[in-house]
């Protein structure tokens, strides 16, 4: 694993205690002079120079194994100055033998621009074994920085029914998940809908929709096209379903459903019913729009050009005084084509770069948020309704 140029090597603590880890974290900032060899011939001095630990947030991350832990640590390093003040990466296994607690600690510093001082962040990777792994809140609580918001990031498929999940979520002000990784998407969406935290729930799949939402909204910023909105009658969404070589995304349809849920709630569409049930990740629904019945189609596409779950295409169709209108965003690979076909004219508006974002880029935006997102909460509820309707028909 390559370290950033300003990340210190790990301080390894095997068979340790929470109190010892807590003391070591405190020493990082209070020792008269802590000299840490960066490994590149220079030395970081933790006291006596004008730098400070950030005061942004604590981040608690759960991982299944050490490889995942290393991946998360790398992702966090790439967050640069948006790094959480203290990141605690938890790898817990109640059935594992050995010491109850191992810890790895390192700091990561950035020089400020324009005369600003150096700011530093801490990463703490904990491996918890045996009975202690069933009581993670007791281990984590003393290690978070007081009076800072705490986000809990649960990558993968969260064990919604595991008491440890509840323990950690209740420690945080915000839960961040990726609904595209849920094994049971409908069950997961429903559970997310009832989790109440001060800063709500963040969803990586939802965050990936941000550029799509922006491009969609831009169609209707112009008043002459806005008049088509009440008359939308068809929505087609295509998403990357991955292929046999790409794994890890169990519910690639999540983002497409959230997008449909977003449009449906913004435009107050009502009463969903299935149109053909669910087949291979594709589904169709009929909703009541303001003036038209709206036909929604969600279709998976097997492709190597985009990661599973990424949207590939959105097409909105409406009827207006001058005939039908179509609003299209196509993103086959790393570039999007945005087309408006309305008022009797076809206009290729533009092509813009729209590359799938890395996990770190998406997470970076999520960590900035410190309040509930009503837009997401509405879309989440609607997505669950749409999926339930489609699944009921399939059953």
């Amino acid at each position: 694993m390559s370290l950033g140029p300003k990340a210190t090597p790990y301080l390894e603590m095997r068979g340790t205690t929470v109190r010892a880890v807590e003391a070591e974290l405190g020493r990082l900032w209070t020792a008269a002079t802590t000299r840490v060899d960066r490994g590149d011939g220079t030395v970081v001095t933790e006291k006596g120079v004008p730098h400070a630990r950030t005061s942004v947030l604590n981040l608690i991350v759960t991982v299944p194994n050490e490889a995942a832990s290393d991946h998360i640590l790398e992702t966090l390093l790439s967050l640069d100055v948006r790094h959480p003040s203290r990141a605690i990466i938890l790898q817990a296994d109640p059935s594992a033998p050995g010491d109850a607690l191992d810890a790895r600690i390192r700091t990561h510093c950035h020089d400020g621009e324009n005369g600003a001082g150096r700011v530093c962040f801490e990463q703490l990777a904990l491996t918890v074994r045996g009975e202690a792994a069933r009581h993670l809140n007791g281990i984590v609580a003393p290690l978070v920085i007081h009076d800072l918001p705490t986000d809990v990031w649960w990558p993968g498929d969260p064990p919604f029914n595991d008491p440890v999940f509840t323990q950690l979520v209740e420690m945080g002000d915000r839960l961040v998940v990726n609904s595209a990784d849920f094994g049971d998407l409908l069950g997961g969406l429903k559970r997310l809908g009832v989790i109440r935290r001060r800063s709500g729930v963040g969803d990586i799949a939802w965050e990936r929709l941000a550029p799509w939402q922006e491009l969609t909204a831009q169609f209707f910023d112009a008043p002459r096209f806005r008049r088509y909105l009440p008359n939308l009658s068809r929505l087609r969404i295509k998403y990357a379903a991955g292929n046999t070589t790409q794994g890890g995304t169990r519910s690639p349809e999540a983002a497409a459903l959230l997008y449909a849920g977003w449009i449906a709630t913004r435009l107050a569409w009502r009463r969903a019913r299935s149109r053909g049930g669910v087949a291979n990740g594709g589904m169709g629904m009929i909703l009541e729009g303001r003036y038209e019945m709206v036909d929604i189609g969600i279709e998976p596409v097997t492709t190597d050009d985009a990661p599973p779950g990424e949207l590939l295409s959105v097409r909105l169709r409406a009827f207006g005084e001058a005939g039908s209108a179509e609003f299209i965003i196509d993103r086959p690979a790393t570039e999007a084509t945005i087309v408006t076909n309305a008022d009797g004219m076809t206009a290729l508006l533009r092509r813009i770069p729209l590359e799938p974002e890395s996990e770190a880029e998406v997470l970076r935006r999520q960590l900035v948020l410190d309040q509930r997102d009503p837009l997401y909460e509405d879309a989440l509820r609607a997505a669950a309704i749409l999926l339930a309707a489609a699944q009921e028909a399939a059953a």
Partner: protein
Amino acid sequence: MTIAPAKPATSSVNPLRQGLRQERMPEPCTMVICGATGDLTLRKLGPAIYNLALGGHLPPEFTVVGFARRPMSSEEFHAHLRAGIDQFSRNRPVSESVWSAFTAGIEYQQGNLDDPEAYAALARRLDRIDRDRGTAGNRLFYLAVQPSLTPEVVSHLGAAGLAGSSVRASGRQGWTRVVVEKPFGFDEQSALTLNRQIREVFDEEQIYRIDHYLGKETVQNLAVFRFGNGLFEPIWNRRYIDSVQITVAETVGLEGRGEFYDQTGALRDIVQNHVLQLLAVFAMEPPVEFSANDLRDEKLKVLRAVRPMSADEITHNTVRGQYISGWVAGEKVGAYRDEPEVAPDSETETYVALKLGIDSWRWAGVPFYIRTGKALSARVTEIAVQFRRAPLALFGRAGAPGIDANVLAIRVQPDEGILLRFGAKVPGPGLNIRGVNMDFRYGSSFAVDSPDAYETLLLDCMVGDSTLFTRDDELIRAWEILDPIVASWHTGGGGPLHFYAAGSWGQPAADELLTRDGREWRRP
């Protein structure tokens, strides 16, 4: 099953825009930069527009037209902008994928700024852009020209039919705004004349006088700090505040602005706009609403309450200085009078220290000490509030030395943030008390980058929010405050011109301004 209904949308609102991160998306528009090949475009405007595009803050139809005398193709103008972005943008180097989309909406129109035909050609180009790119007749003219050219450019814009919010050739009525850079005149009379000249063409609502200090996060946060927290506003008055120091210190010299600066000086260049705007935001009463005119009404009241100085008071309460050679940040700096385009016997001040009073119920008796200068030892802009001491020296009886008064320092640049200094017991036996800092820094407390002030202000202008721009009456009042000082200095009043070594904190005379009041300058 029922999908959760949203509020019914009105035709004037895009329901898909509501709740998105980019809620303040400007309408499609064209920004015309008059004087587009100059330093301001290279250093500030180009990077600001690029960063706004990079952040997705601009509509797809947004178009820039560079308008200047120098012959140049649109492609060469792109290269000119790119050089500036690569050097001065907070996001650099340029992202290739964003750049190609960004430049698709950037054109160059060559023309002499004194040639009516050039404006006619510009008008034709803008009409064509309205048709081709759907900019709907919305136009923003940014006057990045020498101050002396402002009236002429404005006049030509009007004569070419480019100034009014009238029906365009495209058939749609769009808005037109004009951004004017400082200096806004060089005294009250010239400012009134300039205002009149601009107002002959544009309405006041169309005029955006830009002072980039007002676009800085900390200055905006000053209002939030005061009026968004219950803790501070109750003590923001003469009962608790002993004095206020406003410092705008630069380490740089003239940077090629010798001719302009020698005719202007620190008082006009910095105090008339930046410092008095900082003072006004700091000292104003809570506005009824956080809206453009309410805010500017309150700032104006502060400026109106600044006590006029008699000739004697000017002598007593002002200090002016000029730097001589010295060392700044390890580099030798020549004397001001040796700078290019500066008269060898120049009397222009490169340093000013003032003591102002505000005759209001809130601030009566609280001195506001102001200092600004070039070639000083540090680059810093801050407002420092010194609170009154505790009424009883309780710990003195127990043998502890006197406790420093509390200080609240609002750091505008660099390292934007707020610092509160208070006394704390030194650990250990005995009762020793020492000042400690409680320090908030933007850089370490928010997981986001602060936008450059020009980004904030350009976006505000495009969405028609003039809150952070200076209104004509504020501007005139600022000159009314300073004109007597300038006049006194020019007639030999107000004390001598002092000299200070580059790299120092100014001259002892400025220290005397405070020490005679029993105070001293903060060393930020």
